Every structure is written in structure tokens, then in C-alpha cells.
């Protein structure tokens, strides 16, 4: 209990400092207030044209697809992460050395930083866009089941962090891991369901995606948000999808720990 309280204090302190640090660049976040709705408008017109008069496509109705894209954009603001870039920079320059001497695990430090950064994202990206979707676009973007949605988004937040942290750890082996990161981002864009819901992919691809981390960062939380009764090729309901997400997150956390133990042995602390 004492240890948990200590961790909470550490997390709060780091998150608060990160929040204050990034508050200096508020307009950086506010760009999303323009970019998010414009992307959404484009998606709206594309899918209006594609649906035409048709009732459902790939098992999704037009209104659900539109809500999916709205939810997907909002989830992106809550889960956005660049732990991979940060870690690879620290390793490449040798600055990671300072973290090995601190009485705090770097992963926990980075996670706390992400909390602070995303609290800022909540106020300057999520909230304005949420209100724009509701009051300007008249889209009912409220989650169908608030409890399940909060749980799913929280796990997407952690999943995104752990995946990115693992990508950052490749720098211990490759020194400069920008190629791996770009490659991951490329696949994540497609297979996380950010561009198109995974329902549109062939069954085989959807099944393969169950074993990869992409869909747990965006597709599943967005489907949970819209209250879909049949998620993915396995036709999961909301609680089943959230349990699957929890299992995937658990495995990712274990993998991250194993990779960290392996990677830290290669750290030379001299930069490159």
C-alpha cells in the first residue's frame, strides 16, 4: 500500500510537470481542433457517397460508420503517444544513462509523462472536438456504454504506450530505429482501423489481426464506443471484446518486460 501511494505521488509529480511543460505549446494541440473535424468531414462525404441508399456495408450501417470515425478520432486524442521516439532518442544520444541512475523505472517515468501529456490533450483536443461533433455536426457521439468504453479506452491507452515503448527499445539493438518506427506506423494506420473499419477486410486478415497489437489501440475501443453488437470476424459482443483486449494488453506488458531485461544489457551509455 505504501509503495502504491509512493508510485501515485511520483506519477502525479511527473505528469504535472509534463502538463506544465507542454502547456507552453497549447496551440500545438489546438491544431487538432481544425484538423480533426476536417478529416471527419472528408470521411463523412466519402461514406455518404459510398453508402448511397444501401442499408449496411460489411455489417455496419451508415450512422454506425460515421460514429465509428468520430469515436476513432476522439480515441486518437486520448491515446496518442510518442514514447518510441523519446526512448530511441535517449538511447541514441546516450542520455538514457541519467535514467539508469534515478530511483524510478524509465518505463514508469515515460508512462507518467504520457498521463500528463494526454491530460493536456483531453482539454485542448478531445473536449473541443467532442463538442464540435455534437453541437456543430449534430452527431450523437456519446458512448453507448460509458463504463465499457472507459475501460476499453484506458486499455487502448496502455496498449499504445507499451507497443511504442517496445518499438523505442529496438534502439538498444539498432541505435537508430526510425525505419522500424515508420514501418510500424505505416501498418498501424491501416490495420488499427483508423482509415477504414476492419470489418471491410477479408476474414483471414481480420483473424490474423487478432494476434497483432494494431486493432487493440483503435478498432476495438471505437467499436465498443459505438456499442457494436458484433465486433470483428468472430462477432464478439462488447464484454468479450474488452476481455480480449485485456488479454492482449497483459501479453504485451509481459513482452515489454522481457524485451526490457534483454535490451538493457546492451546499453553502452555512450550514445552514437
Amino acid at each position, binding site marked *: 500500500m505504501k509503495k502504491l501511494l509512493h508510485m501515485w505521488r511520483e506519477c502525479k509529480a511527473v505528469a504535472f510537470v509534463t502538463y506544465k511543460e507542454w502547456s507552453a*505549446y497549447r*496551440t*500545438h494541440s489546438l*491544431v487538432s481542433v*481544425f*484538423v480533426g473535424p*476536417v*478529416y471527419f*468531414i*472528408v470521411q463523412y*462525404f*466519402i461514406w*455518404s*457517397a*459510398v*453508402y*448511397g441508399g*444501401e442499408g449496411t*456495408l*460489411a455489417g455496419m450501417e451508415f450512422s454506425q460508420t460515421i460514429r465509428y470515425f468520430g469515436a476513432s478520432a476522439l480515441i486518437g486524442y486520448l491515446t496518442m503517444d510518442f514514447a518510441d521516439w523519446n526512448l530511441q532518442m535517449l538511447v541514441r544520444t546516450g542520455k538514457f544513462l541519467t535514467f539508469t541512475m534515478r530511483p524510478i523505472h524509465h518505463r514508469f517515468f515515460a508512462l507518467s509523462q504520457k498521463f500528463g501529456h494526454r491530460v493536456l490533450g483531453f482539454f485542448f483536443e478531445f473536449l473541443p472536438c467532442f463538442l464540435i461533433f455534437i453541437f456543430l455536426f449534430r452527431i450523437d457521439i456519446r458512448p453507448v456504454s460509458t463504463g465499457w468504453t472507459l475501460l476499453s479506452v484506458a486499455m487502448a491507452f496502455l496498449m499504445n504506450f507499451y507497443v511504442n515503448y517496445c518499438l523505442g527499445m529496438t534502439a538498444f539493438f539498432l541505435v537508430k530505429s526510425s*525505419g522500424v518506427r*515508420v*514501418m510500424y506506423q*505505416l501498418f498501424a*494506420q*491501416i490495420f488499427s482501423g483508423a*482509415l*477504414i473499419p476492419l470489418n*471491410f*477486410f*477479408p476474414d483471414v486478415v481480420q483473424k490474423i489481426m487478432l494476434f497483432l497489437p494494431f486493432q487493440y489501440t483503435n478498432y476495438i475501443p471505437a467499436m465498443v464506443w459505438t456499442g457494436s453488437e458484433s465486433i470483428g470476424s468472430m462477432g464478439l459482443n462488447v464484454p468479450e471484446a474488452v476481455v480480449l483486449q485485456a488479454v492482449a494488453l497483459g501479453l504485451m506488458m509481459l513482452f515489454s518486460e522481457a524485451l526490457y531485461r534483454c535490451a538493457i544489457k546492451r546499453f553502452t551509455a555512450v550514445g552514437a
Partner: protein
Amino acid sequence: MKHLKLYRICLRTAFSQALAYRADFVMGSLITLLSNILFPLVTVLIYANGATFPGWNMWEVLLVQSVYSMSTGLASMVLSSIVWVTMDHIRGGSFETVLLKPISPLFFIMATNCDVQSISLFAGGVVMAVISACHTGVAGIGAIGSFLLLFVAGFMVLCGMDLIMAAISFKWVGNSRIPEIFDSISNFGKYPLSIFPQAVRVFAVMVIPVAMIGFFPASALLGRLDPKAYLSIIPCALFMCFGIWLYNKMILLYEGVGG
């Protein structure tokens, strides 16, 4: 003539620099090429699920998107550095090193920062356009002429966009998300204009003529071009001129203390 000679030398240097790190160059080009292949995946999936963009078959839409890739690839190769290099110089307070050169700052930045890797984006776009055109057919030699004319106009739009972005960075120091604003707007140029409502069409043709980046040149190849589209070349040229004017005007705001 002097500028052309200088540009040729700079281009040769950029290629030599890129080839000094061959593995990085090849890897970067492959990733760019792969992203190019994945970009039209949404369209393919939409059609694979039995849906369509009304009045357009899959290959026609892919042609619009491949022409868009060609334009952005070329612009990225020649122009994209203007934004990032200007932004870096302003943030670091080192723009004086550009201003001191006995040549236009705009030309200097453009010539000395050619992004050779984007050649794969352009090449990927060309390959995709050829494949799509093989399926759709081309309306004739005249259509190719119109395509080239409109493609140049589309390039002018991208040029204007990059210059405006770079110009904004003189005032909005250190905001690396400025390009996202224009990226989001240029999304309207990736799809057939007919799917958008009238207000968006007017915006995409007359205000920020993003329809010229992919839609109009591809329509010319398909023989589906409304002759009125040629009038849109005027706003494209004006847009680029505005970009050049704004960039040169905003240089005066440079304070030389970094940001």
C-alpha cells in the same frame, strides 16, 4: 540560366549525399513506396465490399489517387524542404545564414534541400497511374496534353501550399503541426469531386484548388473533363503567386533570436 545551373549542381549534390548512405536511402525509399501501395487500399476495400463511388469504377478512382501521389511525390521532392528547413532556421535563430547568401532565400532553400527519397513516391504514383490507365483507357493524345497542363497547375497548388506553410512559421514559431492543417484540406483532392456538396466543390476549385492535384488531371486522361475546369488554372497560378508573395513578406518578420 544562372539559377538553372545552380539548381543542377545542387541536385547532383543531393543525389551524392543520399547515395553516401545507401542503406538508409534504399530503406527510406522502400517504406515510401510501401506507403504508396497501402494508400489506395481503402478504395480497393470499399469496392471489394460491393460498394462504389457513384459514377466511378475502381480503376478510375485509383487513377485519381495515383495522379495525386505523383503530384505530392514531385512536390515533396522539390518543395517540402522549404517548410521544414525554414521552420528549423526560425526556431534555431539561424535564418541569417540564408539571408546572407547572394541569392533569393527561397531559391537557396529549395535548391539546397532537395528530398531525393521522395522520388520513390513519384515513381510509385507513375506505376499505379499506368496500371490504372491500362484498365480505364486514355481518351487520346489530346487528353495527355491536357493532363500535363493540369498536372503542372496541380503542382502550382502544392507549391503555394508549401510556401504559405513556410511563411506561417515566421509568425507561428516552432509549430511542427502546420503541415497537418494543409494535409487535411488536400484530402478533398484525393477523391472524385462529384461526391462532395456544391460548397466544398467551389472551395476545392476556386479557394484552395486542391481538386487540381489529382481529380482534374485524372479526369482529363479519362476524357471526363468539364472544359470549365481549365478556368481553374487561374486560381492555381494566383495561389502560387500568393504563396511567393507571402513568403517574401513574412521574411521581414524574422527577428533572429530563435524560438
